[in-house]
């Protein structure tokens, strides 16, 4: 799977946000930067769906949110829908490096306990 091909295919260029992906033998990591607003999040959802479909077997998907500075409700939806698909396929999905203000939104919505987190070096 070429993650950058997927990013180019599913992702328009946004002035306020970007996505970068790296693959290794454990799976795929997607680094999200900037604003997860409405349009960005819709594209992100498509990209995540495609990525989950491409990952074989027990390979894991990590979504790194270290550089996310804004999370819209559509962004929360994109991540939730990705998790639902991952669970259906019994694929491990982890969030990483959530900033406190991003985490607080998930906690307010009572969704935090559905997600698994992985440490910065995991």
């Amino acid at each position, binding site marked *: 799977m070429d993650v950058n091909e997927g990013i180019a295919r599913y992702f328009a260029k946004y002035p306020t946000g970007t996505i970068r992906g790296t693959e290794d033998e454990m799976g795929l990591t997607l680094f999200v930067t900037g604003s997860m607003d409405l349009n960005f999040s819709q594209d992100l959802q498509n990209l995540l769906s495609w990525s989950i479909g491409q990952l074989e077997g027990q390979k894991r998907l990590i979504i790194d949110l270290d550089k996310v*500075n804004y999370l819209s409700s559509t962004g929360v939806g994109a991540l*939730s829908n990705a998790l*639902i698909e991952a*669970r259906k396929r019994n694929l491990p999905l982890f969030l990483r490096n959530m900033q406190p203000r991003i985490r607080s939104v998930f906690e307010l919505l009572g969704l935090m306990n*559905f997600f698994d987190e992985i440490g910065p070096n995991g």
Partner: protein
Amino acid sequence: MAETGPREDERHPDDLIGMLTLSANLGRIYAQDESEKANISAIDTMRHSFRADAAALFYMTGEKDFRVCLAGTDFPISLPEKRWTLCVETHSGDASIARFGPWSLPGIEKPLSDWISARLYTSGSSSGFVFLGKDSGPWTEKESAALASIRTIIAPIIEIRFQRDAEEHKRREAELLLSRNESRLRDLFEGSRDMIYTADAGDSITSVNMSGPNLLGYPTKSDLIGKPFGSFALNPSDRSLFLERIAKDGYVDDYEIVLTKRDGTTIFCLETAHTLKNPSGGIRELQGIVKDITQRIEAERDLWRTNLQLAEANLKLQKTQVLMVQHEKLASIGQLAAGVAHEINNPLGFLISNGKSLEKYFGKIRAAWTAASASPDPALSEFMVKANLAGIFSDADAIFAESRDGFERIRKIVLGLKDFSRVDRSGDFDSYDVNAGIESTLVVAWNEIKYVSEIRKKFGALPLIKARGSEVNQVLLNILVNAAQAMGGLGRSEKGVIDIETRAEADKVIISIRDDGPGIPENIRNKIFDPFFTTKEPGKGTGLGLSISYDIIVNKHAGSLWVESEPGQGTTFYIVLPVAGPPPAGSDAGSDAGTGPVSA
């Protein structure tokens, strides 16, 4: 107003002094009274001076009202436009002075024979007129000239008054329009159910509608005014990002932000705002509308939560299903093994008994040979040497002993297999001898264990317990085989040791199985009972064994199963089983003991 005739010494206006006096009077009247009623006084004075029987002043107000003031009355009269126009048309032609008659004033029956009228001014399409009428004879040229002169004097006054009135009217109308517009905008601002606010360049709120304090749970606007907007945000850095964006683009559309109410609860809000810039380009004012979208967000959240819960439940269900299938498989394997064992048992039976018979017969033959060896017949001796009967008899003992041993081993294995799967008992809870169960499991597992480990047993005196023996044996087998495989993976030249201990304590039986293998690292120790968790290579284990074992001991038998381990020092599994078995169905433990035949 009382009517008085002219005094004798009052001069007629056709006389210069009289004209000046009339002019001065009219000037004084109009200077003193700015209202419309001045026209009444004026026309009264005119009638008086000209000694007319009737006089009327036709004019228009600034509001385009058509009026007439009749001398001798108290108030101006409004006429419909048509009637007014009809009256003034009698002043015909372009001349400023007209003479006509007989004619009567509107509303007055009595016509007068001679009239004289003067057009006072023209404004647009309208004019003002003064009409004088009398019955005592035609108006003279002098009187006509006098009227013309008076007209010249007062026309400008009347015109100015008319224009001023018209302007005043326009001004009042414009003010009214402005005030209505202002009201409408104010209603829009105040009445909006969304919060509308303005803030200065430092993001302090400068004005807000009532929806603002309502949204945030404050009683009055002054609770918000003067405060920084960011102080109402759950994360002030969210507001900082907003301000960065609006400074750059001049506006922000649909920005989601979480705000905190006075009581500490949070609301999800959506804001659209723009800035007014000052000439230098800096922000003069920020104007925004904030909408409460909490309900919408909560509805979406409920949807996500439900779907997530469903997905997790689904996954659990899948795993449970696999577990159950695995249970079934193991149960059938057990049955299969028992069946095979049973099949072997039969031929084994007559092998053993035939062996015994053979040994007995051989004994007899040996006795005969011994007796025959004693006889010194040389032909017999030669034959016996050739046949190597001595060698045969010497080997025979060893052969019979080995065979007996072999049969015994097979018998033990078959017995162990049958006992292990206990298929001759019902699948329900029964009396189970833990120590015997361990022994039969060792028989089955021996092939895995014998190359890598010794077994040391320390069995206490145990009561029989209520359990499903075949299931408990499965658990023991699983743990023993895991231990043996872990130890085998170390590749040591010497065999390790597996210590098995059992003891009774109060109403429980405690089993411990300790190996001196590699141990289990801490970070996976609490995962080993998870379904599908395995450290073996793909294809070398399903990762289900310990999860099934856990299910059997904890859920089915109301027991406990846990592990203690130190990497490099080995692993100990502890199994605790209640002597009385699990509590009956319907009570807390939720197992299904005693509810009739139930498959595993």
